[in-house]
């Protein structure tokens, strides 16, 4: 399968393996197409997880990872792509409805926008919160002092 | 002065209820007695429910306040009375405040006609059963008022549910009651009665409790009533109005302290009230068991020992548990308390053996024992059944109990008519 995809897309797609687990790094521009193909033609009908990793030192700061599983093939694959800070991705809610909350969480934690998402807003943090906690430049003790002061009435903001 | 004593004394020789005799002094005494007895019953019920439920659920229940938690209800009452009485913002103050009183009023007023014995009732009305149903139906109003006045969604939904439930089950209940009333007319004159005392006397005259009358018609009617009465009092498995897992506490969510305890009081006295109706209508009221099989003065004598004996049995249980108490000094007060409680129970038991008391008290005893059986059923249901859903509840009320009630009513009427024609050609 991976070979076939590699043959079709060439340099835009790089298959890799670590600890006996397959994943592929895909160019941002190919993402909608690849996900669609994986879902419809390669039978990856179950989107296990969508998450992101932040690399502040890189130019393309974010890795987005889709963890997919196929019931008919009993096989897992990870799709990975890199995007710039502030860039957006097409939402995969039309492909896998489960992506709804997973993408919201990525948005909540990293500030990555998904185009076409039906209801993209914060999910775990309160709506007015400033900052995206899972970015590397967000300190572990850091809080949105202003939000805490206004909404919880705690003077110190902690 | 002498006149007053004469007035007070005059009732003692009459064989009527104080209300019927028109003796205001004894009416007041009876009202106080019934009120006090009811309050004690509610307190006892509170303790018993927690204890019995606990034992059904492999735990001990209250054990700390007093020996075996005997003082727990009193502690609870004090706690409730000392709590802050909260009036929610934007609630309708007047209605919010009057609702619990209306509920309590309705729940207690019905006891005016409950016959604890042939003369042990505050009064005997010729529309007794109608009065009970009517006044107890007024408590719905209190619930609706409480739910609406709280200005909050959970109480509102709770009130809607409970009023819909009570109004629908009243219909099935009424049909069951009517079929029992029909049975009272099977006498020489062919006249029935609505009076609570008259209904029991009809069972006495016919030598048959109505639950066994026209078997299985009486039983079915009793069954309909027994289901409807649980629904009517909003108890498990029909406790949707106060389902804590759905509506937190239903119509009394916003109530606290004293007013909440009024709802509590009303709920339990309503349970006792409907059980009293069931006992009066189908289980022979104050009549002792087996009046036909085991008849005669000797058996009367033997049965009159039951009240005292049961109290002595309870006292014996207390003493047995006193002996089983841990011997640690910390438990000394508890041990003494339990022994004292046993002594009080034993003393009551001995008093009940005095011949004069023995004969008078047994009506009340048998009536209370039957009601207590229903109270146990209430607790048992709660320990066993999951909760019905609202549509299922309504379906059962309208599509099962109502047609069943109508069928029983028609059959009872036809059988009664046939019997009367044959009996009195």
């Amino acid at each position, binding site marked *: 399968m991976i070979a076939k995809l590699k043959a079709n897309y060439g340099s835009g797609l790089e298959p890799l393996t670590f600890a006996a687990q397959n994943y592929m790094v895909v160019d941002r521009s190919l993402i909608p197409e690849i996900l669609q193909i994986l879902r419809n033609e390669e039978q990856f009908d179950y989107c296990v997880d969508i998450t992101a990793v932040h690399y502040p030192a890189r130019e393309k700061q974010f890795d987005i990872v889709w963890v997919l599983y196929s019931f008919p093939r009993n096989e897992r694959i990870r799709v990975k792509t890199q995007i710039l800070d502030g860039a957006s991705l097409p939402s995969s809610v039309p492909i896998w409805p489960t992506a709804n909350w997973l993408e919201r969480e990525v948005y909540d934690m990293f500030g990555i926008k998904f185009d076409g998402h039906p209801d993209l807003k914060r999910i775990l943090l309160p709506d007015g919160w400033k900052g995206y906690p899972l970015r590397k430049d967000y300190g572990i003790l850091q809080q949105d002092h202003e939000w805490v002061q206004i909404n919880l009435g705690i003077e110190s903001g902690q | 002065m002498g006149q007053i004593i004469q007035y007070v004394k005059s009732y003692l020789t009459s064989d009527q209820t104080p209300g*019927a005799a*028109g003796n205001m002094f004894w009416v007041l005494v009876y009202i106080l007695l019934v009120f006090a007895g009811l309050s004690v019953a509610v307190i006892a019920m509170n303790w018993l429910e927690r204890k019995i439920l606990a034992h059904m659920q492999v735990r001990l229940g209250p054990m700390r306040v007093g020996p075996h938690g005997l003082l727990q209800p009193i502690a609870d009452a004090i706690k409730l009375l000392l709590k802050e009485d909260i009036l929610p913002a934007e609630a*309708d103050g007047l*209605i919010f405040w009057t609702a619990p009183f209306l509920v309590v009023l309705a729940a207690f007023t019905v006891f005016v006609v409950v016959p604890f014995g042939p003369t042990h009732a505050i009064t005997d*009305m*010729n*529309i007794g059963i*109608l*009065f009970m*149903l*009517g*006044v107890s*139906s*007024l408590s*719905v*109003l209190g619930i*609706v*008022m409480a*739910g*609406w006045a709280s200005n909050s969604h959970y109480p*509102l939904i709770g*009130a*809607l549910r409970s*009023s*819909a439930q*009570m*109004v629908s089950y*009243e219909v099935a209940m009424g049909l069951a009651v009517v079929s029992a009333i029909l049975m009272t007319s099977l006498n020489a004159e062919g*006249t*029935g009665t*609505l009076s609570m005392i008259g209904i029991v006397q009809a069972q006495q005259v016919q030598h048959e409790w109505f639950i066994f009358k026209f078997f299985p018609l009486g039983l079915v009617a009793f069954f309909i009533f027994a289901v409807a009465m649980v629904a009517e009092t909003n108890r498990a498995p029909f406790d949707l109005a106060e389902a804590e897992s759905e509506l937190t506490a239903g119509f009394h969510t916003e109530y606290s302290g004293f007013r909440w305890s009024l709802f509590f009081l009303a709920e339990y006295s309503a349970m006792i009230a409907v059980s009293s109706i069931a006992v009066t209508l189908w289980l022979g009221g104050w009549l002792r068991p087996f009046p036909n099989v085991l008849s005669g003065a000797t058996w009367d004598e033997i049965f009159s020992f039951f009240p005292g004996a049961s109290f002595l049995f309870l006292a014996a249980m207390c003493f047995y548990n006193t002996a089983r108490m841990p011997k640690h000094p910390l438990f000394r007060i508890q041990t003494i308390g339990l022994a004292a409680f046993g002594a009080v129970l034993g003393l009551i038991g001995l008093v009940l053996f005095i011949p004069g008391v023995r004969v008078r008290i047994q009506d009340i005893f048998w009536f209370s024992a039957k009601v207590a059986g229903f109270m146990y059923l209430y607790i048992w249901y709660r320990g066993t059944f999951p909760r019905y859903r609202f549509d299922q509840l309504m379906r059962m009320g309208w599509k099962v109990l109502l047609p069943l009630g109508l069928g029983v009513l028609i059959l009872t009427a036809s059988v009664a008519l046939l019997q009367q024609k044959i009996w009195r050609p």
Partner: protein
Amino acid sequence: MAPVATPFFFYLLSGIMLIGGILVITRKNPVHSALALIVTLLGQASIYLMLYAPFVAGVQIILYAGGIMVLFLFVIMLVSIDRAMKERQFNSQWVVGIIAATALGGLLIAVFTKGKNIFPEHMLPVVTDSNNTQEVAKLLYGQYMFAFEIASLLLLVAIIGAVVMAKKRI
């Protein structure tokens, strides 16, 4: 048994009923109006009791106060109270209202002044305590059987109509 049908009780209950009736039409909050109506109905039940008609009194409490008014409240509670509070209370047909009120008042005064001739005193014997309910039943299912059945039929039509209106498809 000492009579309770004294003028004192009559005036007390009538007063309560009148106050209740006035509150029904003057209160802005429909729930308050409904509750005032219940007070009026309970007063009416008491007056039935004074007239030695306990069965009618009991039925009045069960059906009106305990049944119908609960359903009334049920509906009112679901309606948005805030909107009802803002609406103008008395509608503009006050001319018709005054005419109707005058006509009704005139009728009442006429009955009151000439009543002695229309209703001879103590024409019907006071029904004794014990068989009151039986008497009602005999009248209802004997003499007035036809009227009773007509009334039931009317109610049945009303029920069917309500079901048809509430349910889009049956």
